[in-house]
């Protein structure tokens, strides 16, 4: 009979079951706070729905009469599945379900009902073997201890070390193991028929959730694919940013923190416009500096100029330059430019690097991300440009990408005004890049008379976009892109980040 099994093992069961139940509730509350904000409301609602569902479960338990032990195990397995997958389910459904709250509270209600069934079932199983007052006191004691355990573990260990996705899956596994264990512990109360099937299902649930734990990162990527609407071929989280490469029928795209950096379909327009005007205006530059541009595409264009002796590329993120030198898709596009013997790659913050001493450069290509944050905004300040002036020759030419002058006019002209303030002679120009729209650049030089280049010469053969007339045309500004007054971007005001935020908000 059952009393041969040590009773504390059954109490351990109660403990595990109680811990799992509360963990699921906490996950739902935390997730709802993360995704929807307003933590007080979310937690109140989640707790309310959960507690009332407990009542519903308890009430339902009266209608169960036969095969209590088997039902208990089935409930455990169901709970393992629903609870264990609750965090992934909620994350994914948030991405593409309009009535997210319905999914959220539905899940909480199902979990609550199942947990509500657990204790009455277990108590009825045990009532044959224990004095009623002992039974109630012990089961409830372990139930509350389990709740305490969960509430301590959750903030201290689980969220910081496992994260929500894995916590949910790990406790699902624990729940399923309780069920599986039940098939042995409650063996005397189970009929032989269907026992193997029950165990089989328990193993299946454990296996499913373990795969989920291993693949938790892939789940995150999958969510991103749904949001970006394209197949993700590569994704990596570096210390600085999240880099995602997607692919569709037309070509492939690279995103940094969700912002499109280039599309292989038309990036040549952007990079030819960024690089060649400066290279032509600089005459025959020997030492070329690239700031940002870790994808190697600007370097590809630079290497088309014969006189170039060395290219130094400074990009903060080794994760980015690794993609450019290792991912075949990107290597094909940049023609292995970063592997060229003339090229030196330096992974450090350009802000610090330009403050050090360097042999002066003849031409500079600045290809930083748009100034959407303070840590990028500092790379567009008078302070930065003054430091840059210290490491270039007196007649060096600098080109810079400076966001869309059509969408973000203040941002665009602010960058040009700031360069002027730092002592550069600046010429605006722009071109159309279909996936970006109208894009803005500038040529800048410390020399007084910056001559805009008109002739590409034999280089034209190697280009896909520019020809002589197009080159001159870049510098003809249309009527809707004309200079406006802006403040100057300095480290101590960072007005550019504010302009950029105002102008781009809601437009991407």
């Amino acid at each position, binding site marked *: 009979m059952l009393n041969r099994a040590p009773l504390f093992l059954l109490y351990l069961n109660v403990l595990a079951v109680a811990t799992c139940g509360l963990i699921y509730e906490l996950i739902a509350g935390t997730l709802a706070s993360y995704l929807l904000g307003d*933590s007080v409301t979310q937690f109140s609602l989640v707790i309310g729905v959960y507690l009332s569902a407990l009542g519903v479960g308890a009430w339902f338990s009266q209608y169960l009469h036969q095969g209590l032990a088997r039902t208990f195990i089935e409930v455990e397995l169901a709970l393992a599945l629903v609870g264990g997958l609750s965090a992934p389910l909620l994350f994914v459904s948030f991405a593409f379900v309009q009535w997210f709250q319905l999914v959220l509270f539905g899940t909480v209600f199902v979990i609550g009902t199942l947990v509500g069934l657990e204790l009455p079932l277990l108590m009825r199983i045990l009532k044959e073997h224990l004095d009623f007052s002992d039974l109630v006191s012990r089961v409830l004691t372990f139930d509350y201890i389990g709740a305490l355990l969960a509430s301590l573990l959750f*903030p201290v260990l689980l*969220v*910081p070390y496992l994260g929500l996705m894995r916590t949910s899956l790990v406790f699902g596994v624990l729940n399923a193991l309780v069920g599986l264990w039940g098939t042995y512990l409650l063996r005397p109360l189970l009929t032989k028929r269907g026992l193997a099937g029950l165990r089989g299902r328990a193993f299946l649930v454990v296996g499913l959730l373990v795969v989920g734990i291993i693949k938790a990162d892939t789940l995150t990527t999958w969510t991103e694919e749904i949001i970006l609407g394209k197949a993700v071929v590569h994704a990596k989280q570096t*210390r*600085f940013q999240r880099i995602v490469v997607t692919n569709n029928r037309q070509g492939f795209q690279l995103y940094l923190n969700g912002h499109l950096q280039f599309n292989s379909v038309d990036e040549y327009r952007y990079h030819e416009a960024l690089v060649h005007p400066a290279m032509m205006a600089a005459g025959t530059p020997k030492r070329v500096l690239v700031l940002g541009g870790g994808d190697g595409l600007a370097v590809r264009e630079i290497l088309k100029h014969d006189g170039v002796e060395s290219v130094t590329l400074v990009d*903060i993120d080794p994760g980015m330059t690794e993609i450019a030198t290792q991912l075949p898709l990107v290597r094909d596009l940049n023609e292995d430019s970063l592997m060229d013997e003339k090229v030196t790659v330096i992974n450090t*913050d350009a*802000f*610090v690097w330009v403050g050090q001493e360097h042999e002066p450069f003849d031409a500079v290509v600045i290809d930083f991300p748009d100034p959407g*944050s*303070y*840590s990028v*905004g*500092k790379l567009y*300040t*008078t*302070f930065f440009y*003054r430091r840059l002036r210290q490491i270039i020759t007196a007649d060096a030419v600098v080109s810079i990408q400076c966001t869309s002058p059509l969408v973000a006019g203040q941002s665009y002209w602010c960058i040009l005004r700031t360069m002027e303030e730092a002592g550069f002679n600046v010429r605006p120009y722009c071109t159309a890049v279909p996936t970006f729209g109208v894009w803005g650049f500038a040529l800048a030089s410390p020399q007084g008379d910056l001559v805009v280049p008109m002739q590409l010469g034999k280089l034209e053969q190697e280009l896909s976009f520019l020809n002589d007339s197009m080159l001159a045309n870049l510098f003809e500004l249309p009527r809707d892109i004309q200079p406006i007054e802006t403040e100057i971007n*300095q*480290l*101590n*005001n*960072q007005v550019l*980040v504010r302009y950029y935020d105002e102008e781009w908000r809601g437009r991407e």
Partner: protein
Amino acid sequence: MAESEKLNRRQLLTVLLGSQFAHSVGCDMSKLPPVGELEHTSFDIGHLLRDGVKKAIRPDVHEDVGVTIVGGGIAGLAAAWRFKRAGFNDFVLAELERQPGGTARSGSRDGFKFPWGAHYIPVPMAENHALIELLSEMQVIQALTKGGQPQVSEEFLCREPEERVFSEGRWYEGLYPGHGASQEDLRQLAAFREEIDRWAEMRDASGRRMFAIPMATGSNDESVRKLDKLSMEQWLDERGWDSPRLRWLVDYSCRDDYGLSPDRVSAWAGVFYFAARIAGMGNESQEVITWPEGNGRVVDYLRGVGDDKIRTGLAVFRVKAGTNTESSQVAAFDTNTMKPIGFRSQQVVFAAPQMMAKYVIDGFSASGRDSTAFRYGSWLVANVHIKDRPEDSGFPMAWDNVIRESRSLGYVTATHQTGVDYGPTVLTWYYPFADVDAAITRKQMMNLKWADWADVVLSDLRRAHPDIDTLVTRVDVMCWGHAMIQPLPGFVWSPEREQASKPLGPIHFAGTDLSGVALLEEAFFHGVRAAEEILAVRGILDQPLVEIRND
């Protein structure tokens, strides 16, 4: 030590950080950082001197020197700077600690520089000639506008984002917790700003600003003196300003600048904090100048200037004023050689805290002076080394990072001004003992160990950065016993304070406490002033940098 004098962990956290720690686990040493040190100012030597050891020691070695400067904080260093500038080199500076600089000093470790105390200076206004002179020499100020306003090199102006505040689980930009503010909150904030602007714009009968830095260049009109009779809290009450957000802003500002809560800060000082930094109606508050090592940069510069004259580890225990025929005498205990040493000079700059004057200067009390009104607050400063940036929700890491629900002042990021936004850095965390004098005595504080303090620091940071324990590599703690003069109501415009700057025969006084508020600018002003008084007496004062008020 009596058992009752040692606080347990729960008591300590509750007293310092608030009631939410009342249920903290009894002993949680598992979360302590790997290494760190606890440093005190020379508390023991200071108290030995106070308690009369001096009578037993009599130096038999004497040096003859024109002027002896007692104390190597900013005031003493400023006096030395002023002497050198006048071409006067016949002086010596005696400093108790191993490092000069007082509460402006800084530290360095593993390639990082970080402050141990004061860490910024608002851009001085045109009237602060002496400080403009110093900052120009340091090439921090590049030029002056036609109106005499200094133009500061971009490198030294605090980089944006300057401040953020952690409130209800998230970081917000700026210091005022504007998130969720009601119409009434915003109305009161606007009214408060208007009142401050009014004070900033106003001039007295002599054309002086009502509040200026140094405060001696501001007004001493009855209308400002009157404010000193109230506490800042009473001043807010009188205006019916009860917005919790505004109250918090004022509370934070008082604790930040004076180490006191608003019920204990003179309303004069409270208004001074805001109004002295605004040039006039419609102007923003002056921008701030800062360095990775804080005001340690100024200390290091001044130390470089006065280098050959600075003697550290000298505990001055007696100053005796000379007469027409006899030199003044300064007796010190040299902690380097463990021997007493004496200086005979014509003048003395007493640039140590006023609280020491009655123990050190012969006949100080007999001269009718009373320094008991000079009260000093204690501070705790920690430098927390982290191997990577903590995860954040909301506004990104700024220079000044304040936790609204905490009685600490939050932390300043040491690498902010260098422009390094990723990877290892040092967070300088500040805690003023603003309202806990009764709950924790200075003695109890001095009895606490490094582990106790490290626990307090990390418990506080954990509220905003739950992952901090996985990032910390080192926590160093400094306990400042008498860190800051307290502008308690009635003190700033008390006769005791006003009289304290006047020389006592050949002894000239310097120090920020003479202004009633602790600011580098005030310390520097008094150091320069004391030096100029002496240069004038010696007949070698060239072009004075400070104006001495004659009223």
